[in-house]
């Protein structure tokens, strides 16, 4: 993103004549989308003012997440006013005069903090890591107990065909599996017979009941949240949010290594106590496979973009082969 374009845009939005971008930094690794941290100074009501913003946009070839950028923005909007800690979102930009290199984007509040967990693997910090694990569980409890109807999440179905509303608790897992099976066959750059087998396993083992129709964060991970010390100050990455079974979020968390903070069963125990939601171990076992399948599908979408020359980042080429290790985990869990 060009600094002059950012300056012009924020000057327009903030109605500032003398806005100066003092810092502009792209967040690492930014595989699924580009995230830019921008600090500005300008005069407001005669007073010098400093503010921080986050710009979020697809990479030039599109995103490996097969859902639109605006989807995440709409989720953020609907979380306002809940007790889920998030950055505030300001603007989603579609006007052609403001697009960044021809790309739509949205802007949200910049929240100070870090994504990385300090001293992972160091037993000297075990007590701190347990506090952080509990914090994560407590924040996830807030996500799963959001009154999604009152917050307008039902309206997302009018905006996106991918936003499915289960009729009742028996439909949560099945609807999402059907959606992602369709996405998988659309994005795969080559056939995967072993994944077709795994899909048959998923259909056979699909949970018949979930503990309510819950807001599921999707791609939930301890390193997807902004931390200040042992406190989560903002939950990030809502690209894969949907309505479904909260066990899926614990499968994501496990896959992304939350067990390094504290034993998974203890984290879930704590979560169950604070949320009042019981996580069925059978459902969790199913979702341990399902999240690998979703991740594989997203990486295959990236591979497809790389093959077509739409996104030549070598990271996508490398991740295409990493996804084969996901496939191997899947076939092991499904006993091919």
């Amino acid at each position, binding site marked *: 993103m060009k600094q002059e374009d950012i300056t012009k845009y924020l000057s327009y939005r903030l109605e500032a004549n003398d806005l100066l971008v003092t810092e502009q930094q*792209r967040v*690492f*690794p*930014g*595989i699924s989308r580009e995230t830019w941290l921008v600090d500005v100074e300008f005069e407001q009501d005669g007073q010098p003012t400093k503010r921080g913003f986050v710009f979020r946009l697809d990479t030039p070839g599109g995103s490996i997440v097969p859902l639109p950028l605006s989807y995440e923005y709409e989720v953020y909007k609907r979380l306002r006013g809940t007790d889920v800690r998030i950055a505030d979102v300001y603007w989603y930009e579609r006007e052609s005069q403001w697009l960044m290199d021809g790309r739509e984007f949205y802007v949200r509040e910049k929240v100070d903090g870090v994504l990385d967990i300090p001293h992972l693997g160091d037993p000297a910090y075990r007590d701190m890591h347990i506090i952080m694990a509990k914090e994560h569980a407590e924040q996830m409890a807030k996500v799963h107990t959001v009154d999604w109807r009152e917050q307008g999440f039902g309206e997302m179905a009018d905006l996106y065909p991918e936003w499915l509303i289960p009729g009742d608790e028996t439909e949560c897992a099945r609807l999402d599996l059907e959606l992602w099976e369709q996405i998988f066959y659309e994005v795969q750059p*080559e*056939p*995967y*017979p*072993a994944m*077709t*087998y795994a899909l*048959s396993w998923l259909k056979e083992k699909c949970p018949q009941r979930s503990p309510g129709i819950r807001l599921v964060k999707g791609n939930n991970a301890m390193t997807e949240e902004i931390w200040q010390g042992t406190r989560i100050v903002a939950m990030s990455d809502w690209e894969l949010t949907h309505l479904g079974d909260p066990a899926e979020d614990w499968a994501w968390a496990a896959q992304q290594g939350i067990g390094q903070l504290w034993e998974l069963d203890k984290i879930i125990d704590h979560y169950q106590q604070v949320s009042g939601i019981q996580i069925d171990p059978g459902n969790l076992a199913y979702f341990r496979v399902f999240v690998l399948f979703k991740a594989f599908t997203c990486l295959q979408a990236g591979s497809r973009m790389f093959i077509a020359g739409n996104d030549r*980042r*070598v*990271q996508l*080429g*490398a*991740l295409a*082969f*990493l996804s*084969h*290790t996901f*496939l*191997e985990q899947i*076939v092991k869990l499904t006993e*091919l």
Partner: protein
Amino acid sequence: MRPSVKQLIAGIRWSFKTYAVPDLSSRLGQSTGRSIMVLLDHLHERVEVEGQLLMDDNEDMRSLFETLSNFLSPLFEQGAGTEIQAALGRMREKAEKQFRAVGSYPGVDSLTEENEELKRTVVDVFRVLQQHKGSVPEEMYLKAERAMRDQMRRQLDREHQWIEPVMGKRPY
């Protein structure tokens, strides 16, 4: 012609690691450097074995089709549902298809195209059998499914040979 592809890759990798990587200062630059190194390692493993692996894989799938044809031929005779018959018909066509002129060199691109068409057929037959499981005698279905799963397992084992040495490393 020398240096060979594998020798060139080894040289590119060494030069990149020795002279370029130490100067990469940004996180994104370092990440790109890591990905390039991982892919060079991958190509080094892949360049010599890919052609043979594809040939073996293609032969394995053709052999599977022959096996399935034998197991499932009663379904043709008994007039099983049209979707099953159609899928088995497509399978037989693919088993007999010539992907190259006789005597021509089986380049990797051609072998890959053949491989993908044959895999598509495996997926097609598997899905159709699954969908119409109730129309197929149980013993026949289980034999066919086992044969297909065994072939899928062998396919992954072949690929594992050049994925595993490389993908233990962080790819970005």
